[in-house]
């Protein structure tokens, strides 16, 4: 039982070689700007050492404590049950299972710990396993650089419920984050949530039955592409909230399939996502420099795309953070494919539809209409701050939120402009 083994043991590299180079095919069409899929990242110079003892529930936490930079902890196929949350604080460690449906870390019996697995470390890779039924968040990574989450499934197996843990895959205050080919199901807040982080790629994942499928919050430079978001309350959310270490900007959302995110909002009142109207496809809240293009967005019953200020949903903190810029600015929406949606909206959008569009669905793109008066130039929104729309046949609703929605109406022409495309995110881990 003395498992001082993950460190210092030698050999056993053949397993890691197999798993590390496995390449899951992307579900969606290859995107021209997407960097080519590469082999497993070599994020540390240290030679990798793979666990040679059988890893199971009795020794995994000890192996995590004793891990050395460069170690690979291989967890075989099987379901492993934990009463307490697990944690890792050693840099340069890889945790690897035998597949997201084969290696299952189950927290159904958990009595202590606010997460399934809590990581505070850099150069961290986790791949090919599932984390199920944690009391709180499934996988939280709090501060670190070069974080790779690959083919990880986080799921609450009893279906969507307010009693489920908040976040599935949850890197926060991290730099260089890659989340790919993963699956997040049933989170009572966000399935994949990257918060207060910089340089992010979230690609080729699947998020379903979460309140927020994929959420980028208060983060700089994120590429979100090739994902499938369906059956969430909101599909893909790009948020800025007040009172945090940083406000973010610079997110590209492209080549995603965002359809039928119509699940009732089962978030906890008081959380920001609890304000998300059920049936939101892509929702931009108070974030700047967001480019949304070449997505397939359909059948989201509130609206396929919503651009709004935190003010309109009461999330601006009442001005307590004077540095907080509550207005979404420099948002460029173009070349997306739309179908359906807007037919059975939630919250205030329901009222707007009944008043102004009793017989028609809401337009594909809804803007709350709030404008930062302090930034107007000669009474006009500065070009770089505009919300520009170039779509073949989608229309834009100005909800007239600054005027209590009194004169909500279609005003697509006001958004007939273009913005410079954003630069792709380049990650050293790719």
């Amino acid at each position, binding site marked *: *039982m*003395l498992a001082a083994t993950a460190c210092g043991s030698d050999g056993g590299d053949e397993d890691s070689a197999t798993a590390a180079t496995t390449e899951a095919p992307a579900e969606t069409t290859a995107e021209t700007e997407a960097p080519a899929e590469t082999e497993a990242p070599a994020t540390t110079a240290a030679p990798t050492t793979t666990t040679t003892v059988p890893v199971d*529930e*009795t020794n995994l*936490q*000890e192996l*995590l*404590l004793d891990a050395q930079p460069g170690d690979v902890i291989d967890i075989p196929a099987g379901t492993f*049950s*934990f*009463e*307490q*949350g697990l*944690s*890792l*604080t050693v840099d340069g460690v890889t945790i690897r299972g035998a597949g997201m449906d084969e290696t299952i870390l189950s927290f159904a*019996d*958990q*009595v*202590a*710990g*606010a997460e399934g697995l*809590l990581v*505070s470390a850099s150069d961290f890779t986790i791949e090919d396993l599932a984390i199920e039924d*944690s*009391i*709180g*968040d499934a996988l939280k990574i*709090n*501060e670190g650089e070069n974080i790779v989450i690959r083919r990880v499934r986080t799921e609450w197996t009893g279906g969507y419920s*307010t*009693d489920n*843990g*908040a*976040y599935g895959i*949850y890197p*926060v*205050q991290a730099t260089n984050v890659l989340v790919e080919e993963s699956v997040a199901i049933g989170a*009572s*807040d966000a399935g994949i*949530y990257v*918060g*207060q982080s910089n340089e992010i790629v979230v690609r080729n994942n699947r998020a379903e039955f979460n309140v927020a499928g994929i959420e980028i919050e208060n983060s700089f430079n994120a590429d979100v592409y090739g994902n499938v978001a369906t059956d969430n309350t909101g599909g893909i959310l790009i948020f800025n*909230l007040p*009172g*945090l*270490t940083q406000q973010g900007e610079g997110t590209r959302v492209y080549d995603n399939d965002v359809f039928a995110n119509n699940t009732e909002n089962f978030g*906890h*009142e*008081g*959380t*920001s996502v609890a304000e998300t109207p059920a049936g939101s496809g892509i929702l931009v809240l108070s974030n700047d420099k967001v480019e949304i293009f070449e997505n397939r967005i359909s059948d989201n019953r509130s609206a396929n795309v919503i651009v709004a200020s935190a003010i309109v949903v009461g*999330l601006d*903190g*009442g001005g*307590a*953070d004077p540095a907080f810029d509550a207005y979404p600015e420099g948002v460029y929406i173009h070349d997306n494919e739309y179908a359906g949606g807007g037919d059975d909206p939630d919250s205030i959008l329901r009222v707007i539809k009944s008043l102004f569009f009793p017989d028609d669905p809401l337009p594909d793109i809804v803007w709350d209409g709030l404008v930062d008066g302090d930034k107007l130039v000669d009474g006009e929104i500065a070009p770089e701050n505009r919300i520009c729309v170039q779509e073949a046949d989608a229309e834009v609703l100005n909800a007239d939120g600054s005027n209590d929605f009194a004169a909500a109406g279609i005003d697509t022409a006001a958004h007939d402009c273009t913005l410079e495309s954003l630069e792709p995110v380049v990650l050293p881990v790719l």
Partner: protein
Amino acid sequence: MRPIHRARPVLAVALAAWILFGCSSSGEPATVAGDAADEAATETTTTQPEPSLLEEELSALAVPVFHATDNPVALSEWGQLAVSDGELVLSDGITPYALNSALFSDYTQKLRTVWLPEGSPPATYDAEESLDFPVGTVITKTFYYPLPEGASATDLRVAKGAAAAETLAEPINLSSVRLVETRILAHRETGWVALPYVWNDEQTEATLSRTGDLVRLTLVDAEENTETQFPYVVPNTNQCSGCHATNHTTKEILPIGPKVRHLNLDVDLGGGLMPQLALWQDLGIVGELPADDEVPKSAAWEDPSIPLNDRARAYLDINCAHCHNKNGPADTSGLFLEYSTQLGPRLGICKPPIAAGTGTGNRRVGIDPGEPDESIFIFRMETADPGAMMPELGRALAHQEGVDLVSEWIESLDGDCG
């Protein structure tokens, strides 16, 4: 449910480590008494000492030791405290200490000690942060419960009650308590390390358990006539740093309690009540102190003669601020609960949550002035759901007295979140 971890009674290894340490401590400010080391060396020739022999051994080993690199398997190898004649006693040179307000840990009582090796310079004074103790310092904290009437330590039934000794100077009578764990903080050249030791049922020895432990206890509250089963969690070493790495970026482990504002009180070390910091100065634990009135003092949260605001802020400071500070692991929340935080959104006033998830309890702001039942603070303090409660670590029970205090304080606050 399966236990995650079983303690490993590896006495031979422990004694081997003891000897090893004796050989490798040159240059360190550590002191190993030759006698004790020799006795230990003799001991290794026997394979498995009988329990009775072990008990004798413990008192013989009661000389404080700084382990500069190794992590001894047995707590007794640190020589800070020892079991002797049915009592838990402190070794010569070990100073017990107390805090104005202490972290709530499932109603455990705590025996805290500090030791600086002979010849060490004293810790330098710091008005705000933890005292800057020299390398070689060993701090211990022993968590124990008084026993309910008629119970023995092996029953796993423990009482909500007072400390086992009237003053810091008195030893703890082991027939009246259940020892659970002793945590060591040792200041090495490379920084502080935190090591949890779990006591055996016989209360003769505690064994290093780096993976922590889960002890299923029943808390008996004689006053309320209630019994509550709960999983007492001994933290693993990562969880130790979960609180003690108060700066989450540097991840440096630091003591939390020994800040002057917490230590600024009168204690009885055997000579009647005396100012603790002055005693520490006399004992060479702390160096030059400023004038009395310049030394900050946090409130004793249980002392009703102190203004409510001071007590509540002291409670939040010692229970929350190790994470909720501007560099702490909870800086992601934008909520800062140090003694010095101004009343405002950063302290939670009318502040919406960021990533509270289940922890909101369907309430909209951290503190709704005048409305404790609308405040997330109170929900997260009252709940014992590990996914929703605060603090995230270190308790499985709600601290009713703490909830009452913070509720009363929120009740007293003016304002309106609109």
